């Protein structure tokens, strides 16, 4: 009768903790301290900044829409840049994306096309805009060309991936009828990637709209130039008005993109899109 009530050995913990996460946390904390001292980020600076923030926000509000003619002109130019860059970019990205697809093209075509896509993707559109401002001068054209390059890189990459994922069966079936290459593309490949392509296209229009409001910072047209100039003149209430307009424009663009996706991907009608019987909005593709 001795050991019935003796406590058994404690069970092994079902989730044994490892040493490595703790080491990682310590290393991360050390890095944060190192990086903050390197960049002269300190708590005092944050506190001073928070005092500034009150004055800054007091000067931002109320927004000043007095110079709305300049504002509307800049917004329209941004919109035009986004539309033209998307159209040009999509038209150029189609052949490039097709040429980069490994399942349809021989290696001597895919490699240059892939290199072109990587080149177009590696720089931020604003940096590409700097080079185009030098090449074609200040103004909307530089912005259009810079965003076209960005669109070719982004859509080209996604389009290539979409083509590489298609089913070979339909392609082989069209080929077996003796169809020429153009017909193989039109009836074997394009129907399989069309709906994804609509998704990429609307997403890119959205992304171009965001960036077209920014390329003006380096002189490539659109509202960005007005925004940056107002900021440098400490004209903060006008900055606030510009920011509110930009956000409204981008949200309107997002709504349009959702509508287009509903029509082409979910086969919605105009009544579905504008009426009350709207299906759940599609989640936008996420990237920058």
């Amino acid at each position, binding site marked *: 009768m001795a050991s019935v009530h003796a406590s058994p050995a404690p069970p092994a913990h079902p989730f044994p903790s490892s040493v490595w996460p703790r080491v990682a946390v310590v290393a991360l904390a050390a890095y944060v301290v190192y*990086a903050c001292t390197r*960049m002269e980020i300190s708590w005092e600076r*944050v506190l001073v900044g928070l005092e500034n923030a009150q004055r800054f926000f007091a000067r931002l509000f109320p927004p000043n829409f007095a110079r709305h003619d300049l504002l509307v002109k800049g917004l329209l130019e941004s919109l035009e840049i986004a*539309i033209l860059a998307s159209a040009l970019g999509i038209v150029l990205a189609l052949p490039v994306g097709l040429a980069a697809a490994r399942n349809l093209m021989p290696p001597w075509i895919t490699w240059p096309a892939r290199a072109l896509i990587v080149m177009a993707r590696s720089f*931020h559109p604003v*940096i590409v805009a700097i080079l185009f401002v030098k*090449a074609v001068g200040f*103004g*909307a054209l530089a912005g259009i060309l810079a965003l076209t390059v960005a669109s070719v890189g982004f859509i080209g990459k996604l389009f290539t991936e979409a083509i590489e994922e298609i089913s070979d069966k339909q392609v082989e079936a069209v080929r077996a009828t003796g169809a020429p290459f153009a017909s193989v593309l039109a009836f074997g490949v394009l129907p399989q990637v069309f709906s994804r392509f609509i998704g990429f296209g609307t997403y890119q229009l959205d992304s171009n709209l965001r960036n077209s409001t920014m390329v003006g910072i380096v002189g490539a047209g659109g509202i960005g130039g007005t925004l940056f100039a107002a900021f440098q003149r400490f004209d903060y209430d006008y900055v606030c008005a510009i920011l509110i307009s930009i956000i409204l424009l981008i949200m309107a663009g997002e709504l349009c993109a959702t509508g287009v996706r509903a029509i082409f991907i979910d086969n919605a*009608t105009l009544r579905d899109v504008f009426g009350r019987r709207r299906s759940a909005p599609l989640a936008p593709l996420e990237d920058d």
Partner: protein
Amino acid sequence: MEWRRFTGAQRTARFMVYLVMVAAIVASARTVEVIPEFLYDAPEQVGDLFTRMWPVAWAHYPGGVHDALMETIHIAALGTLLALVLALPVGVLAARNLVPFTPLNLLAKLVLVSSRSVNSLVWALLFVGIFGPGALAGTLAIAFRSIGFVGKLFGEALEEAHPGPIEALAAAGAPWTSRMTYGFWPQVKPAFWSIALFRFDINVRESAVLGLVGAGGIGMALDAALNLFQWDRVALILVAILAVVVLTEVAVTFVRQRVL
């Protein structure tokens, strides 16, 4: 009666989209201000650009570019870390299965949407206005732009988590913290790290331009070189940015394949 894939209303909707698209392109092309004289001049200007960029000012790298480049990487890393810390609670609040209280869900979603609809350059302008020029503004800009991205994807990963293990823990009487750490976290951990890596890759590209508005990093060196028309230094900076972007992408791909 011929077979048609879409109903009349569906075809009308598609036709209207095409019509609006063509009208928008034509209207934009007609009204956008393009100065043709600048275009005729372009080949000459591009030639001039390359002759000014060559030879690349490699000697300038140790003194003028290295520190700025490191600062860019620090801005991207610290900004991503801060965004992860800030986005975790917002993502949890946005997940409807974790916080079954709709007003809080909507509030969290509003935070996420407003973070994403402001460009990182605009965030940078705001933080330069508050904290003055420098890396602090850049770090905060990167962090605030990333909250929306990380929080949205993390919240979606939480909502997709399988309820089985969580219900088992709840049935065993586990407190909220244990349900989080042993029920949710193991399920969303791979998604979380892959989101973090993806965002870090994006942030390295973005932090390279923040300096154009004064928010620190290599963009400030780029801005200085541009304003002085030192195109050989601009070329050096562009090569440096390209190298860092490519290296980051390679590193991120490596970590994703090996560790995750």
